[in-house]
Each structure stands twice: as C-alpha cells, then as structure tokens.
C-alpha cells in the first residue's frame, strides 16, 4: 500500500472577485522513502496542493472542495482536527520557503525545536533538549549545544533553514513536505540544504514531497515528478520519463528554461505570457495560449484528462497542437514571440 494516495484533490479560494480554482483535480501517490517532485510556475497550484494535504489552507477564503488523501489508510482531508493534530508535525512534517519568516522570532530555537517532540511524545524537557542538540548537529550547525538556546535572529538564512529541517525531522516523520526549501536562499547555500535533506532522508527513510519551480533541482533528487499548470497536472512519471521523454509542450518549455541545459552564449529562454487566470473557466488546454507549437484547432470542451501513456508515464494531451517536433525546432521557427505574449496576457 502506498504511504500517501491523493485522488482528485480540489481546493478553491472564494474571493470577492470570484472563485479561484487553485487545485482542480490532482491525483498522485507516494511510497515509503520515495521522493516526489512537484514542479510548476508560481500560481500553478503546487503549494496549495501540499497545504491542502496538511489542511493549512486559510479557511475562509480557501476551501477543500473534494477528493481524498489517504495517508496510511486514513483520509487526511476528512479526519477530525484532533486526529489531524496527532499527524501534523509527528508523522508528516513541513519545511517552508522562507526561513527568515518561518521561525518565531519571539521564542528560542530550543523552545521551537522541542515543541513537536513534547507535543507528540511523552519526553521530559531535558531529554528533549538533548535530542534537539543532536538534531542540530545532524544538520551541520556548529556549537549546537550552545546555539540551541539562541533566538532565530541570531542565525543566518541558511542556518535557519537547517534549523527548520532539524525541527521538521526531530520526530522522524514518515513524510516530509518541502515547499521550495531553497528558493529564498543564496545560491551557494542551496546545494548544501538539498544535500542535508537528501542525507537525512536516507538516514531516516522518510518520504519527501519536494515543491519547486526549478526543474534542475528535481532532476538531481526526485524519483517521481508531477508537472503542474493552472491547478492541474500536465505530466507525471519517473524523473527519467519526464526529463528524457517529456511529452507535454509545457514540460518541454520548462526544460528549455533551465539555464544549464542551454547552449552557452544563447539568450536565456523564458516562456512568454502569463500563467492562466484560474478564476475563469478554462476550455481545452490551459497552456494553449502560451504554447509554442503549431496550433491545429481552437481549444474547447473540458480540460484534457491525465492519461497513462506507458509504464506510469502520464500526460494530458490536449490535441489542439502538433507536438510531434522537438521544442528546439519549434522555437527556432517562431522568430517573434510577441504574438504569444498578447494571447497569454489576454487569457
């Protein structure tokens, strides 16, 4: 049995300006110890997906409209608050994007580190502190025994993210959700943080969901990848499948944006246009307005379903464009992306 099985998750935000369907039918599963990458631009619904699993969506305006998320045989989305609080921070932990704002500046690191231990396990304060020191050492914080009593503002951004990791893993959870853990950090620190997450994952056998907009990070760390766009999954499969046999025009476009994969001296590629406005109904493929491929029809009807092509490799084929050619050829043909920008903006 899979550790986590998400089926048809739907989360919307009910704002004054309309219903924003941030997550619109997402399904995936994750086994013990596995790493899943969720990739997409800002606003693609990748973070909302994970916050929904933890039921951390601010309600109102947010609401989980439907779907199930079976974690170890129980549905995270419908269980009582009491049951949920036994799982949060104990069996599922989370690391957030910005370590500068994710730690409470009014409380000592020690207080925050031992909080989940003391909540979920019957340990005395002294044991908990010792465990906290050990956890800090594991993530490479020097003089942990001394620094454990400091306040967050006495740590740098990279160090704080290490503290966050130590805090998330102190209860040895089954699942760690990392929401863009390196985005807010210096480039020099990013690799270190990813290494620490990987190492601790191997030590503890934790499954990881890694949310990121950086395909490069995914390539190095993930077993499976979901590509999200406009609140839906566009393509999913193993890291190899999504990288080497990318089917969806959006995945291919995303790949083109990885700087290290581009020919040196060439202008960096950016996908023209804006992400879709998910507060309006979307017909056909959400990526259609920005798609660089030759169009073969007008998008209509429902959004295309994710269909399994081969061996777990799924992709949502819209059928309104001719995606047979490799993206390089297509991009070479379109001299001016201006047209795409306009259609993108009008979306």
């Amino acid at each position, binding site marked *: 049995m899979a550790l986590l099985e998400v089926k048809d998750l739907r989360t919307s935000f009910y*704002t*004054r*300006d309309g219903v*924003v369907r941030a997550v619109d039918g997402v399904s995936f599963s994750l086994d013990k110890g596995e790493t899943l990458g969720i990739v997409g631009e800002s*606003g693609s619904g990748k973070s909302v997906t994970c916050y929904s699993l933890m039921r951390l969506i601010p309600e109102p305006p947010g609401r989980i409209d439907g779907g199930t998320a079976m974690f170890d045989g129980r549905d995270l989305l419908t269980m009582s608050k009491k049951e949920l609080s036994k799982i949060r921070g104990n069996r599922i932990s989370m690391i957030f994007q910005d370590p500068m704002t994710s730690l409470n500046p009014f409380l000592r690191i020690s207080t925050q580190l031992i909080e989940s231990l003391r909540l979920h396990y019957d340990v005395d304060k002294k044991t908990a502190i010792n465990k906290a020191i050990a956890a800090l050492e594991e993530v490479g914080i020097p003089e942990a025994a001394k620094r454990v009593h400091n306040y967050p503002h006495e740590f740098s951004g990279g160090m704080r993210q290490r503290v966050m990791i130590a805090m998330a893993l102190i209860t040895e959870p089954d699942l760690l959700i990392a929401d863009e853990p390196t985005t807010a950090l210096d480039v020099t620190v990013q690799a270190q943080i990813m290494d620490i997450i990987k190492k601790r994952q191997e030590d503890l056998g934790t499954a990881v969901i890694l949310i990121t907009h950086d395909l490069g990070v995914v390539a190095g760390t993930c077993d499976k990848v979901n590509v999200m766009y406009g609140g839906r999954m566009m393509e999913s499969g193993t890291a190899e499948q999504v990288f080497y046999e990318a089917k969806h025009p959006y995945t291919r476009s995303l790949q083109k944006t990885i700087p290290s994969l581009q020919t040196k001296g060439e202008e960096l590629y950016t996908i023209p246009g804006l*992400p879709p*406005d*998910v*507060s*309006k109904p979307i017909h056909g493929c959400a990526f259609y307005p920005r798609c660089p491929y030759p169009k073969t029809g007008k998008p209509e009807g429902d959004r295309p379903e994710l269909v399994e092509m081969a061996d777990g490799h799924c992709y949502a084929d819209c059928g309104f464009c001719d995606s047979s050619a490799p993206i390089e050829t297509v991009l070479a043909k379109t001299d001016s992306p201006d047209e795409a920008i306009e259609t993108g*903006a*009008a*979306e």
Partner: protein
Amino acid sequence: MTDHSETAVLGNEAAPLPKHSASEIADEELVEGSSLWKDAWSRLKKNKLAVASLVIFLVICVFCVVGPFLVPYDSQQQDLFLGATGPSAEHWFGTDTLGRDLLVRTMEGGRISLMVGLVATVVSLLIGVIYGATAGYLGGKVDAAMMRFVDLLYALPFTIFVILLMVAFGRSMWLMFVAIGCVEWLSMARIVRSGVLGLKKQEFVEAAVSLGYSHKRIILRHLIPNVLGPVIVIATLTVPAVMLLEAFLSFLGLGVQPPNASWGVLINEGQQNMEIFPWLLMFPAFLFALTLFCLNFLGDGLRDALDPKSAKD
C-alpha cells in the same frame, strides 16, 4: 521613466495576480497613472460602511454650512422670557436657557468645529509632510535624530501644552487652530517618512538624482506624489482627532469663547443642565459623535482602499 509608471507598478503589486482580468490589464496599459486611484476608488465603493460614512458626513457638512441660512433664527438672539423649551415645531432642537434656538446654534457650532478640523489638519499636514519627507529623504543620522525627536514628542502630554498655549496667548480661535495643528503632526511625519524612505530606493528617484535635480525638486515632484495615499488616510483620521481636541478645550472653557459656540461649548452647556433639559446635551453630542464616527470609518475605509498592503483583513 516617470513617476507615473511607477505608481502603476505599485498598484499592480497591491492586487493579487488572479484578480487581473483581461480588461483590467488593458486598462492599465492605456491609462498608466490613474490605475492606483481607480483601484482605490473601486475598492472604497465596495466598502458600504465607508461610503455611508462619506454620505452622512457630507450631509452633516451641508447641514452646518447651509443650514443657518434656512432657519429663521439668529444664533445669538436671546428670548429670556421663553427660556429653555423642548423640541417643538418652531424650535426643532428646542431652545437653551437663554431662549436661543438650539438648531441654529448646533449648526453654527458644527461649522466652527468642522472649520477647526479642516484648518488644524491642514497645519498638521504641512508640518508633518515637510518634516517627514525631509527626515526620510536625508536618511542616516539626521533621520534617526529627527525621528527620535518625534518619538519623544509622542510620549509627551500634549493636551497640557495646548492648554498652556491657550493660557499664554489668549483664547483666540485662530491661535487654537495653529496650536492643535502643531501637536497633531506626528503620525503624519512618521507615515510620510517611512513612505519616502521606501520610495527613495527605487530607480526613478535614483534616475532623478543622477540627472542632477535639486533636493527640493525631487522631494516635491517625485516623492510627495507617491506618499499621497497614506497621507490622505492619516489626514482623514486627523480631522476627528483635531475636532476632539478642540471640543475638549472648549468643554473646559479654554477653547472657543462665548458667545461663539462650537460643539464642545454646546456639550458643556448641555452637560450643566442635563438633569432638567437633556435635549441640550443630546443634540450636539449626537451630531458630534456621529461626525467622529463617520470620519473614523471613512479613514479606515480609505486605508483599506489606498493602502492595501497595510490593510490586515
């Protein structure tokens, strides 16, 4: 790049992305500069409480300014034989102990109170904006010293000073306007300073500096237009604060002097006779409280509309 396009950018940041429909984006491309104000206006219109407050406030203003011309009594005209009478068809708000018509006295009292609110707010606006913009713009040690001074003043018993000023220089109405304005500029200075501090780091100011414009020109032409939103909010909230201070002084007999009357004077007169003639207290107190209510709600509404980032909920 002019500051107008920057305003548009600020406006864009303010609204969350999904809100931008195609038509909005097109509008912003057409009329770059006005989008902040258009956005703010449409947000304000949605706030029913703020709109209602604005309407009621305007009605009160018209009532006080135009009203005295429509009532067939003079505010000073006494009728000692009549004395204090309750509300009636001839005297809608009744009369006071000297037989003066309370309706016209309330109107004229309101006129004085509103005028104090306006004039003293303008004084506080001038001092606060100049002080705050200078501190924020010069930055560094000068800024730190200037703001520490504001902090110190914040902690001081101002009302006592206003009272002393009134005692020292006589109880003239115009002096009171200035005295109140002189003590109510602190919030204004703070808000302008933080606005300027944030804005001066942006490119268009650097561009102006590199073009060799004078400090004065940069402050007047580039910075002040950009902090106008928060300034309007604070100004709106300063009006009730100022009116409160005026009424307080008048209540103590240190403000507007008889035979002139402001709402504070009327409330004081009403308070002295409230056991027997409660309407003398009720009418001016109600109008005064209603005015403060409207201005405070309007200020809150404007804050939500003009300064969406500071609006918490």
